[in-house]
């Protein structure tokens, strides 16, 4: 393929199973507003080459901000204030603008929730799909053109040569997301960040797009960071899952293990919510309160105001004052809960932050 000869990095790339990306104790906060608590507070996450890791949680839990900090695309005012993001041996947070440009779209590609909003309305679809390979892989115009048609065909766009001359507004939502996938794959990246890639699409199209993503990542041995709030997507696509709550990871492990036997009360609640099965009184299970409450807490577990386990396990006292650390509870899963691991360590982050 055209990619390989121009991609000198290909030889040293991590092989499947080896760590490709490691987030170490990442903290994202607003440096100009010191009284506002960090948006992301000490996240550790590893993605191996060729692995699909899902990040789930409610809106406001910091999933998307985690993804944006990987690309150093955080909104103005937000800054990664501590921690490291190691991608293939190098810290993204310490990279120069030039190195970042090399990374973005080249070795790390991103899919967004609103495909039509992310495509440039003034340039043709073909040009946009060709751009990453033209910039990052030095593919010449003619070769790029042929490769674009090949890619568009691969992502299931009928009549690629006609579609390549379209503008984004001429495409349906599903088609636009296919084009986005083609553009993301164009420079043969190693990591794909998919931020709610199917939320704006119909369920029927969603299944098709997820199938396409799954096929492509297997074919290309692509690592994927999948961000979603839909657990059925997670179960269909992800190898591992990390559950986020209020800027922290509260549970992490292999998808089937976590979905079948969740340990953290929040994960349990989230799974029950998404099943939408009524109890004998005809009521749906719902998590009391809202996620915003967690931001007001100064100490203790952030999920405590909405937690049903704490009261029944007689842990109220401990949960109010000490926040548990994210601790392994078996060979492959971790959870941040006193009820799961009563003798575990506590996280000192709250204390450190207090004035």
């Amino acid at each position, binding site marked *: 393929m055209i990619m390989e000869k121009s991609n000198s990095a290909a030889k040293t790339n991590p092989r499947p199973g080896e760590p490709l990306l490691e987030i170490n104790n990442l903290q994202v906060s607003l440096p100009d507003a010191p009284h506002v608590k960090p948006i992301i507070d000490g996240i550790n996450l590893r993605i191996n080459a060729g692995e699909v890791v899902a990040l789930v949680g*409610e*809106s406001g839990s910091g999933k998307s901000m985690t993804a944006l900090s990987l690309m150093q695309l955080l909104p103005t005012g937000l800054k990664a204030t501590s921690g490291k993001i190691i991608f293939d041996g190098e810290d993204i947070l310490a990279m120069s603008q030039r190195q970042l440009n090399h990374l973005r779209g080249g070795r790390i590609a991103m899919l967004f929730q609103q495909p039509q909003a992310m495509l440039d309305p003034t340039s043709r679809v073909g040009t946009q799909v060709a751009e990453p390979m033209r910039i990052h892989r030095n593919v010449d115009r003619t070769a790029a053109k042929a490769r674009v048609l090949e890619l568009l065909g691969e992502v299931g766009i*009928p009549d690629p040569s006609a579609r390549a001359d379209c503008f984004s507004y001429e495409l*349906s*939502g*599903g*088609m636009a997301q296919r084009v986005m996938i083609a553009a993301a794959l164009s420079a043969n990246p190693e990591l794909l960040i998919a931020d709610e890639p199917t939320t704006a699409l*119909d*369920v*029927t*199209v*969603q*299944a*098709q797009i*997820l*199938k396409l993503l*799954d096929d492509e990542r297997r074919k290309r041995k692509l690592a994927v960071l999948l961000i979603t*709030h*839909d*657990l*059925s*997507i997670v*179960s*269909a*696509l992800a190898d591992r899952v990390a559950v986020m709550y209020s800027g922290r990871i509260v549970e992490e492990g292999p998808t089937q293990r976590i*979905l079948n036997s969740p340990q953290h009360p929040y994960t349990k*609640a*989230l799974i029950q*919510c*998404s*099943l*939408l*099965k*009524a109890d004998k009184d*005809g*009521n*749906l*299970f*719902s*998590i009391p309160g*809202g*996620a*915003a409450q967690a931001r007001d807490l100064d100490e203790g577990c952030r999920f405590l105001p909405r937690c049903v386990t704490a009261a029944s396990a007689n842990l109220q006292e401990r949960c109010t004052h000490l926040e548990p650390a994210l601790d392994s509870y078996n060979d492959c899963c971790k959870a941040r809960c006193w009820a799961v691991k009563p003798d575990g360590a506590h996280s000192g982050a709250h204390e450190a932050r207090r004035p």
Partner: protein
Amino acid sequence: MTSYDPIERNLSRDKGTDPTAPFVVVNDLVKHYPVPGFPRGRSVKSVDGVSFVIKEGEVLGLVGESGCGKSTIARVLMRLTPPTSGVATVDARNVFAMKGEELRRMRRTMQLVFQDPFAALDPRMTIGESMEVPLAQHGIGHARERRDLVLRMLNDVGLDASFYGRYPKQCSGGQLQRVVIGRALLLKPWFLVCDEPTSALDASMRTQILNLLMDLKRRFSLTILMISHDLRVMRYMCDRIAVMYLGQIVEVAERDELFEHPRHPYTRALIASSMLEETGLNSSAGLLKGEAPSPLNPPSGCRFHTRCIYARQACSENVQDLLQAGDGHSVRCQFWEHLDDVSQQTARSGDDASREPMARAMSA
């Protein structure tokens, strides 16, 4: 109803109405949007001959992909846009024939809950002001009474009095959806149309709002038309479900019947796609080809034939009517009885040769 209520709830109810007759009857509803710049007659066939009934106190679900005409039905029923043709009666009154004062009174009995609560509220008005507008519009109470009504309704939808003075930007999506539902119920309607009330919300907020809707339905004895593309929401909320495709209803059945014995190939694909954790990616993605065609130029014959994996020659030629597939179960597919034979044969013959035996079974 509670005694504080200055609104006479029975205002809209004809004492002489037969209580067993369906509360909402929609008959052959058509809505075509003309396309500017095209020759006469060219139009988007958004809703093309839709009929359904809703019994009093029933929740009817309307599912389908975007662009199939679900929301148009809601807008037409609410008289927000005029129908091209067709008849709709609510409580034995013809909705489309109403004018002036009669229409204004009728609007009190039918309310709409929109999908996006941020767009449904004026960002420059407080929640309280927004909620009082419909009361003032219908001349209910004095300022202080209206304020009391709004505060009571905020309590009913699970919000505290502090929300009265807040602006929409100070609230979360779930809270605003509660406000919008409360505003719709302030006029004590009989008939509520919910247009995707939970699709803008998180999983945890979604269950809270659905619980609230069901609770309010019981307390206010509402008849609901629930519009959604999420079959899991439908399964919880609805008594009966109608599946729409390109402006037509392709299947109607009681909830359990629809989920246990879906007859139309499109319904089967929809169910498989929304229950990914049970069906897996491969089976659900394989049930449907391509994307929905444009309602500007719907396919000939059966409108679904371009995407149907069971389709054959006859499907593109014969226009299909709704057929009876059981008690209260209708389906718009001429081969609905044979779909099961086909899938059994396919299972036996393996996946690779799936198209051949399917065609054979169809022609048998």
